[in-house]
């Protein structure tokens, strides 16, 4: 049996969900036996592969780059999993949403700066007006809430997926 292709991606989040993913202990061995991690912060690949079976997404969609990336990922992934509250609810990244981006950047890079009093322009992606949950921009198949999601929950989701089942999380995970 060929191995499943699994990718992870880190959008606007703190990497806590990836940490929690690493916390699934011995299940990791199972995962590595059944799947190849083909893309993500944990591996080297630079370009998102053409066909991926499952992609776990951490983080909210906050910038133009996030948006383009997630759209590409969606078109190349069979199943998309929102992993953690930032992906599911936009969580902490959304706390800037009721401040206009221009005001926000001014506050951070002009008023709050000691040197170089201007918002960066080169090599930084343009912020979207709102940081939004992943499912507001592309279709998401499974939501795993939690900040971060408990390792148990992640282990359950991964195990179920690798066994070819769609995990049913309603009532099993804390929301909000």
């Amino acid at each position, binding site marked *: 049996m060929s191995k499943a292709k699994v990718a992870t991606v880190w959008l606007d989040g703190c990497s806590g969900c990836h940490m929690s993913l690493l916390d699934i202990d011995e299940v990791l061995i199972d995962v590595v036996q059944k799947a190849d991690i083909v893309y993500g912060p944990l591996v080297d690949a630079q370009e998102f592969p053409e066909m991926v079976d499952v992609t776990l997404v951490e983080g909210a969609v906050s910038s133009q780059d996030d948006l383009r990336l997630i759209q590409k990922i969606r078109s190349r992934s069979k199943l998309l999993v*929102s992993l953690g*509250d930032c992906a599911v609810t*936009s969580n902490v990244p959304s706390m800037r*949403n*009721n401040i206009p981006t221009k005001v926000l950047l001014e506050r951070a890079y002009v008023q709050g700066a000691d040197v170089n009093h201007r918002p960066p322009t080169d090599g930084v992606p343009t912020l979207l007006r709102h940081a939004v*949950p992943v*499912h507001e921009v592309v279709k998401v198949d499974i939501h795993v809430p939690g*900040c971060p999601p408990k390792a148990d929950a992640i282990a359950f989701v991964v195990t179920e997926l690798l066994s070819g089942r769609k995990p049913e999380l309603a009532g099993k995970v804390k*929301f*909000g």
Partner: protein
Amino acid sequence: MPSKISIRIDGELINAQSGASLLDAALAAGKFIPSLCHMKGLSSVGACRLCVVEVAGVGRLLPACTTPVQDGMNVTTQNDKLRRYRRTILELLFAERNHVCAVCVSNNHCELQALATRLGVTSVRFPYTFPRVAVDLSHRKFAQDQNRCILCTRCVRVCAEVEGAHVWNVVSRGVGSRLVCELNRNWGDSRNCTSCGKCVQSCPTGALAEKGFAVEEMTKRPEPISRLANLRGVHS
């Protein structure tokens, strides 16, 4: 002397005090009907609509909190439609304000969160509104953060009905509705507030909290207030 009557809830025959609400009767019998605006001891306002149930022979859904029990009533509290509607209501609440639970003092001790978990919410279908709402830290002991307010009006009622101070009210209408202190004063400038903290203890979320607590540290105890209200016969 209130008499006993019997009603059927989800097929099970239970005894109830005549004059009691369906919700109280169900809770007394150990049945779970979700609710957020209801608090024992306070008047019922029927605002959150989470407690809607089906009553045989009635064409529409009825809120359990404001429907008095009647002998022989046959009530359904759980079915697919009710579960769907209740989940939708919770999703709407999350989408309305900025419930960033990860940074909330009441995280893990929040009735909204607990209910969402219990009713199986794993995401919100509706686009988040991200409104700009006020945070009032002017009170010496307490904080008010409308990002987390669900407009259940427990604070309004507990202050009026139990404390008798009438500090809280709701201003404006529709999605523009906001909790206000007196005639839109800062809480710290309130003339009526006795700083008793009943509103804080009654608040189901982190919208009203005591100062000095960090994330996840604030726990609430509404039960003593309910007991007090019952003792004083505010709303039995």
